[in-house]
């Protein structure tokens, strides 16, 4: 692919820490991607609007507050409502192992917990992009 992969890095929910998201953003940039970073406290609606207007390949969400079971599926569903079906959706943050299968079931394609390396995330994105 001779165009940069575009990734929306979003922080849904109310927690006020974005250090992790910023580290990811930088790693993705260093891997040659265009990262659209939208800052803290995004509503699912805002995330979807940004994903549509920015025409991203990937929506990467990070949550520390524990609201992932509610917010991740909400974003997935709103994207579907918008008819967006060629975007890779991934999530990260402090997410208990028990919650992961349910999130995958809901349509989040991969979950990266604090143990994951940024390299894993880069490689996952590169090999799972849906659009040429």
């Amino acid at each position: 692919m001779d165009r940069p992969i575009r990734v929306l890095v979003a922080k849904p929910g109310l927690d006020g820490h974005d250090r992790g998201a910023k580290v990811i953003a930088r790693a993705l940039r260093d891997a040659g991607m265009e990262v659209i970073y939208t800052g803290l406290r995004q509503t699912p609606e805002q995330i979807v609007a940004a994903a549509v207007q920015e025409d991203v390949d990937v929506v990467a969400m990070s949550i520390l507050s524990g609201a992932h079971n509610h917010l991740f599926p909400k974003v997935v569903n709103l994207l579907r409502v918008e008819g967006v079906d060629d975007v890779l959706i991934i999530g990260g943050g402090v997410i208990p192992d028990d919650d992961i299968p349910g999130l995958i079931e809901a349509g989040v394609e991969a979950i990266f917990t604090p143990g994951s390396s940024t390299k894993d995330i880069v490689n996952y994105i590169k090999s799972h992009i849906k659009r040429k």
Partner: protein
Amino acid sequence: MNIVERLLEGDKKACARLISKLENNEKEAIDIVKQLYNRTGNAYVIGITGAPGSGKSTLTNKLTKELLKQGKKVGIIAIDPTSPFSQGAILGDRIRMNDLALDKNVFIRSMGTRGSLGGMSRATWDAVKVLDIFGCDYIFVETVGVGQSEIDIVKVADTILMVVIPNTGDDIQAIKAGIMEIADIFAINKSDLEGADKTKLEIEMNLDLNEKNEYRPPVIKVSASKNQGMRELLEKIYEHRRFLEENNELEKRRIRNSRLQLLKLVEDELMEIILDKSVKDDLLDKLSREITKGAIDPYTAKNRIIELIRR
């Protein structure tokens, strides 16, 4: 419905996809622009430039809200530099514009400058035209003011707004270095901080040195984050627009912009043809080596290359 119909119906997804395809230089998208080009020319384009952190995005957000109150449809193109090392970029302008994201009359797009070879001006121009066709009344183009990029937005903007902040002696120096001339309006943002009056004075003094033109760029103190002076600033934009329109200057400016764009397109294609043709027997490398050895002079070598396209 195909992408053209959807675009004309105001479908943001279609608009976004078309911009991507143009950014990636896809022929299908270029054909669409060709087909719809006669629908362009309605949008008024405002270039916003200034140092990183001066408040350009915050200001764009607040001006957009004023325009929305007046029932306008607004497009925003926010450009950030691509890293020359990785070709990646972090595009962070939306952080200051999240509360606009859901408005049906706003479309925001972030762009990296990508390669230097005309990348920015060409893709920006394309995106502006798409938003114009999309039906935007006003289009903001935000670029970081670090040299060439300010000059580049001249090629797309009808009005150029330069954002400066108080108390930065450096800034005024930088403005002096050739960039002062391109500003149609100076907004001294963060005027809630100290030193705005002094900065205003310095800019005014600089403007005094310019030969007397019919139009003198206004210098106004604002505070975007405190939402102060936004109406006045918008009024200054309208005033500049009226000046351009009443003096036939808008058309002149747009013709100048089109000319620059046309030359750029020709230049890009010529370079491509030349590079393509000189791949054969490594002409470029061979001549470069011969020039270095003194076996040929650069002027004769240049003629050898030019012959490739003359034929």
